[in-house]
């Protein structure tokens, strides 16, 4: 049984540094090295989700294939290694679709509903050596790894020596790693080989996030700040198109959709700082794009939550809901084909090309507001709107008023996100937290209402098919009832949630945020 001790990377093309033999010689006289017959060629693929969930959580997942049975190797944040044999896997794959075992269990927790994709591929020649103490006892294994990366770009990585302690010999293995690192000179210890493989292709891990990755400065022109925001959102839209077209997992479409919604909000809330007519020209096109994505996403939400819904049935049996599942899958297939046609259309290509060209050519406006002034003014206005509309809601108000308020809350939230880099992170996080409780309640209220309406429509469509059993419709009736109860509960919670949001303490925090911003 082995525990990872440390990895040492030899310098690639540095004639001043000792080679592999020179580094190993540094272990004498305390330790000796014994070469074993364990030399093999391994094909390796490093896998992660598109949004780097494993890397962010400190995991490295490798799929090794070669002469031996193929295996998944998951290295955790503390260097703990879990392996699982798994032959003939094809990527991308959802964690839940992998063969049962310890690696799958950990992956399901870390990657959730996102598919695993190859982040890099390589061919490695691996030689194992024993490190022996003066009793000729193996105290550590040394793995010498020569890796040629083939994807995302061809590159030869520097030789990598990895020390794994035999159980009970960790201090000696650490000493071995220290001696090797000292002999290897300046290259010494290094990060994981995935990072090196990506760096060889000019990439780095975590180079995609569905969150805005921008840095605005208070004094920059407001128009350029908005341009920075919109370009980042456009990058996100484009980054998610291939994954959506390949239907790799549901979150490509989700991220694309959110970026479109944020773009539309930005145009609505601050489009006036753009040259005249630009926002008005593109807003209808982004509405078209948003609408194009809605039916598929709604069906995805149903299918993602299907098992929980089925398990939550009290009167009906989960199996009775199966025709509903089949109906959802069928509907989703049809809607997805429509979505793909839209994303492959000339209209979509033109929108993306023209929008990027328009943003790239944008020049700063003369006399326009500074970024900080734009942010403060729009945030205050959006905040005022939320307060005004929320205060007008009484227990008798129709559902539409709550829906409108939800939209205002989303707009305020997006503004907070757009301009986050202008504010202190703590004040910004508190403002988001104050808003989030209200948003969750309004979201629950509206989503459950929409789902009830959709259920009725689905039931109507399914009735047209004479083979639909009555038990399926009864089970759907029970689902609609449960959704109604949840919507009712959210409505009852609204007054309290709004009171918290509009509390003097929360308002003071918001004033402090925008007040500090104006300093």
């Amino acid at each position, binding site marked *: 049984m082995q525990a990872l001790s440390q990895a040492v990377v030899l310098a690639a093309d540095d004639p001043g540094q000792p080679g592999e033999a020179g580094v190993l010689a540094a272990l004498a006289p305390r330790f000796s090295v014994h070469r074993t017959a364990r030399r093999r060629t391994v094909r390796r693929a490093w896998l992660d989700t598109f949004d780097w969930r494993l890397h962010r959580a400190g995991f490295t997942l490798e799929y090794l294939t070669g002469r031996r049975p193929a295996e998944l190797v998951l290295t955790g944040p503390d260097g703990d290694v879990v392996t699982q044999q798994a032959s003939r896997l094809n990527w991308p794959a959802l964690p839940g679709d992998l063969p049962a075992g310890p690696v799958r269990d950990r992956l399901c927790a870390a990657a959730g509903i996102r598919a695993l994709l190859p982040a890099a591929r390589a061919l490695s020649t691996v030689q194992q050596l024993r490190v022996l103490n003066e009793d000729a006892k193996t105290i550590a294994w040394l793995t010498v790894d020569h890796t040629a990366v083939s994807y995302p770009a061809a590159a030869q990585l520097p030789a990598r020596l990895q020390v794994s302690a035999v159980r*009970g010999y960790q201090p000696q293995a650490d000493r071995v790693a220290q001696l090797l690192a000292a002999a290897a000179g300046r290259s010494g210890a290094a990060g994981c080989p995935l990072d090196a493989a990506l760096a060889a292709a000019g990439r780095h891990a975590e180079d995609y996030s569905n969150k805005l990755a921008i840095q605005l400065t208070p004094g920059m022109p407001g128009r350029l700040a908005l341009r920075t925001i919109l370009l980042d959102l456009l990058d996100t839209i484009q980054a998610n198109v291939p994954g959506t077209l390949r239907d790799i997992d549901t979150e490509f479409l989700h991220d694309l959709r959110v970026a479109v919604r944020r773009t539309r909000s930005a145009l609505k809330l601050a489009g006036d700082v753009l040259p005249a007519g630009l926002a008005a020209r593109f807003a209808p096109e982004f509405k078209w794009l948003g609408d194009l994505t809605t039916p598929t996403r709604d069906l995805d939400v149903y299918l993602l939550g299907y098992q929980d819904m089925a398990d939550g049935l009290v009167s009906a049996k989960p199996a009775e809901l199966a025709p509903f599942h089949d109906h959802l899958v069928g509907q989703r297939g049809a809607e997805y084909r429509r979505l793909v046609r839209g994303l492959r259309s000339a209209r979509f290509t033109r929108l993306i090309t023209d929008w990027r060209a328009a943003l790239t050519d944008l020049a700063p406006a003369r006399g326009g507001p500074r970024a900080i002034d734009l942010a403060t003014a729009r945030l205050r206005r959006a905040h005022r709107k939320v307060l005004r509309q929320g205060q007008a809601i009484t227990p008798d108000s129709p559902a539409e008023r709550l829906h409108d308020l939800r939209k205002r809350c989303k707009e305020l939230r997006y503004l907070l996100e757009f301009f986050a880099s202008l504010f202190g992170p703590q004040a910004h996080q508190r403002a988001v937290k104050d808003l989030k409780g209200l948003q969750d309640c309004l979201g629950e209220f509206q989503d459950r209402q929409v789902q009830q309406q959709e259920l009725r429509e689905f039931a109507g469509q399914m009735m047209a098919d004479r083979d639909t059993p009555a038990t399926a419709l009864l089970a759907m009736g029970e689902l609609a009832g449960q959704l109604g109860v949840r919507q009712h509960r959210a409505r009852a919670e609204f007054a309290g949630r709004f009171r918290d949001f509009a509390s003097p303490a929360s308002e003071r925090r918001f004033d402090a945020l925008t007040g500090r911003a104006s300093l």
Partner: protein
Amino acid sequence: MKILATYNIKGGVGKTATAVNLSYLAAQDGLRVLLWDLDPQAAASFLFRIRPRVKGGGKALIRGSREIDGAIKGTDFDRLDLLPADFTYRNLDLVLGATKKPTRRIARLLAPLGADYDVIFLDCPPGISLLSESVLQAADGLLVPLIPTVLSLRTLDQLTEFIGGLDGKRPDVLAFFSMIDRRKRLHLDIASQLPAERGDVAATAIPALSLIERMSVERAPVAAFAPRSRAAQSYRQLWDEVKKREL
């Protein structure tokens, strides 16, 4: 998790050679194996090139003030770990005597290792003592090497009688002939007759071979340094028989 002990009241009958080779073969079969060298002479530890030293000595292990887990060493072979001997093990009877329910102590100490190992071998020192009683209570199977002499058979009967008189869990006894000298008529006669007559004697017998003695020079299981030898084949055959009966 199964616990198998190599045990005999007599010394020098091949207990350690059996424990070392069978634990190696079990690990080769893909099982996760721990061998606890309970003999202060530390022969099993020596054969695996592991220094016979446990921090805090046997007292700390038995009292539980030192986690067994932290004293375990990996051998040079995949899936095979060793809990080394320590010279203080010579006093284990005294340490056990000072604990509550001493005869159940070894079983209690090993219970938490169930998640890490499929088989635990206990290589016991000779004699009947409080330690051996605690081992007998912990073990699922007792592997008893016998030199085919009338006196050895008498010892097996004494052991069986002793186990029969134990309270609680009793191990399944499987004796086998060890160190058989093919030149001795008596050895061959007893080794061929007895397995047919007694259900607690294995059909496999381990011959007296110089290669087995050579283990102390090679410091490795015979099945590792001479896998195709007759000695290795004999242990493989014995392991197959033990597996069928005990696992």
